[in-house]
């Protein structure tokens, strides 16, 4: 039916090693952008760790665009 298709990558993997930085951040139960922290009652809570869209204040008004900081 569709066996003749060609699936070619030009940027990913060995096509271009290092085209994207794949971090080794372990997956957490809180979902992306949150991390478990121990609350006052000893239970785990999810707390946002990611600053999000517009979360890096020095980026406002276009200042400080000289270097890449990586994520949260």
């Amino acid at each position, binding site marked *: *039916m*569709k*066996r003749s*298709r060609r*699936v*070619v*990558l*030009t*940027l*990913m*993997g*060995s*096509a271009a090693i290092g*085209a*994207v*930085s*794949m*971090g*080794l*951040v*372990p*997956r957490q*139960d*809180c*979902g*992306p*952008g*949150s991390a478990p922290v121990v609350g006052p009652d000893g239970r785990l809570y*999810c707390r946002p760790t*990611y*600053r*999000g*869209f*517009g*979360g*890096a*204040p020095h*980026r*406002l*008004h*276009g200042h400080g*665009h*000289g*270097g*890449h*900081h*990586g*994520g*949260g």
Partner: protein
Amino acid sequence: MQRIVCPERDDWRATAESAGFDFHTIDGERYWDERAYYAFTLDEIERGIEEPTAEIDAMCLELVGDAIDDEEYLRRLRIPEAFWPLISESWHRDDASLYGRLDLSFDGRGPAKLLEYNADTPTSIFEAAVFQWTWLEQGIERNIIPKRADQFNSIHERLIDAWKKFVHARHLHLAGMTENEEDAGTLAYLEDTASQAGLETTLIDVEDIGLREDGNFVDLDNRGIELAFKLYPWEWMFHDAFGAKLLSAPTRWIEPPWKAILSNKGILPLLWEMFPNHPNLLPAYFEDDPDAARLGSSFVRKPLYSREGANVALVSAGTTLMEQQGPYGAEGYIRQAFAPLPSFSGQYPVIGSWLIDHTPCGLSIREDETPITGNTSRFLPHAIL
């Protein structure tokens, strides 16, 4: 539909890593799992999955058309009023959708049932489009699967075609949470396909998007962001610091703002209201709707906003049997009739049915030992026999 146990390729990990598929194992647990595969007949694929997927997508578009300028719908979906104009304008401007994934319950016998629609930020597309196909080709070569085997999968070439609709833009930015391995992999794959379509691309972390005094969003080189693919939910965009700037900035977004309607679990009761008793829908109601009592004391409870099964609960005879923990639920819940996932050798598969530019074109299957598919569920390949 069958679950067939088979030998795994002894070099699949190296093959995955050479393709950039580094998240095949997560926290020491298999995510990619080829110790078995799901086999379908062509009829099961075409009539059982492909046709219903197209029909559900058409129903969803009809729903958006009704909801887009209707205050009552938008309030029921808890979409912040400040963003109604952004959402409406993107719909009336016909801003194009790139992709989406329907999650279906399907056992090969009865009709597929829509569990939910990942309309805004679906992931697992690389493994569905590329690595699953590599498994099929190598599996045939190595006599792991029958030579006649095929696959419902034209995701890759359809993505490249779909990106060609956007080549009017000078440049495409792809934004997401780049330190998350899975999101980074998804972005890298979509960037690859966009590049093959002829777009110039830049990857950027959502946090690194800046705002110039002229109201333009900019990248780290102060380049204006004209067109951006975002692997970051609209509801988060709305609430984040730059949310209010979305209204005045000229950036066009993929997925477009009108997808904020379809990525909301509130569409499940709204679809049931518009298309009652449709064979591919499950009865569903907003939790505060008195009609929710029609479901009785057994149902699935889902937050309006939720991902990877978080905060989804199975309630049986009034007792919560199983609940995935998570941070969602503040905006309210819906209740959906409980449709037990089929069990194949004690495993519960959910069918992910991919739409690229509104065309059904491929499958992914996530399998779990529990009836809630979450972020630790394994990805199994499929074949048409």
